[in-house]
């Protein structure tokens, strides 16, 4: 069954003022679609972490969400700078964030961990200097 695209948004580099708007929109859409609260919450966490990652770390990119009756797919697709060591990026506490980011309460090296923890499956693909593409799959509980 083909999934329906429900979010396709441009996320700008360092646009902290809008941080969370796309995740908030997705949360409302999922509620309207009648998805259960537990899966809405974990999808919201995943999307928000990815949205903030795009703002904090990337050169800008896109956040997309797809849904059918079985699962929700969140895709974060950016224009760089890419992740040199993907395994390290998933280590709890590992972060490349600067102090100004930490002052905002982010950059503690737990973001991707949360994405992994609340997803049923994730796929990451990255080329240093070029891009990072992350796909998070959330199976909808019946």
């Amino acid at each position, binding site marked *: 069954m083909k999934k329906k695209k429900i979010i396709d948004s441009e996320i700008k580099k360092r646009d*902290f*003022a809008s*941080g*969370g708007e796309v*995740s*908030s929109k997705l*949360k409302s859409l999922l509620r309207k679609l009648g998805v259960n*609260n*537990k899966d809405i*919450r*974990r999808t*919201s*966490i995943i999307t*928000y*972490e990815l949205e*903030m990652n795009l703002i904090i770390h990337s050169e800008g990119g896109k956040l997309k969400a797809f849904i059918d009756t079985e699962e929700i797919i969140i895709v974060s697709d950016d224009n760089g700078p890419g992740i040199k060591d993907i395994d390290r990026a998933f280590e*709890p506490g590992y972060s490349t964030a600067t102090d100004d980011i930490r002052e*905002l*309460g*982010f950059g*503690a090296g*737990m*973001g991707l*961990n*949360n994405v*992994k*923890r*609340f997803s049923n499956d994730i796929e990451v693909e990255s080329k240093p200097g070029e891009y990072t593409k992350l796909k998070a799959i959330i199976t909808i509980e019946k």
Partner: protein
Amino acid sequence: MKLKEIKEHLNLKEIYEIPNKVDIDVTTACGADLMSDVLAFSNAKTMLITGLTNPQVIRTSEMIGIKIVIFVRGKNPVKETIELAKEKEILLYMTEKPMFEACGILFNLGVKPEKMVKIE
């Protein structure tokens, strides 16, 4: 524990309150200055105690269904934070107490931590 009782014990100053919501029952809470730590909790209806005052605190709360945010150490949030809280109907309070003391008082009153989901 009702929110109105917590208000007395922590001597909370209202920043944004919806009067008919002070009867909310608060059974669990979390205290953190790192938003990813807050997002590690996936259960709903938590109270957040934090020293951060930027709008991302409200966004983070919205994502996991937190209804009440308490700012510690006499910190007042910026205007944008208050505006967003009003839009999302998230109650905001401030206490002069530091984080450790505020959390300790709540814990003694019977407000408990939430169970964290394990990383597989």
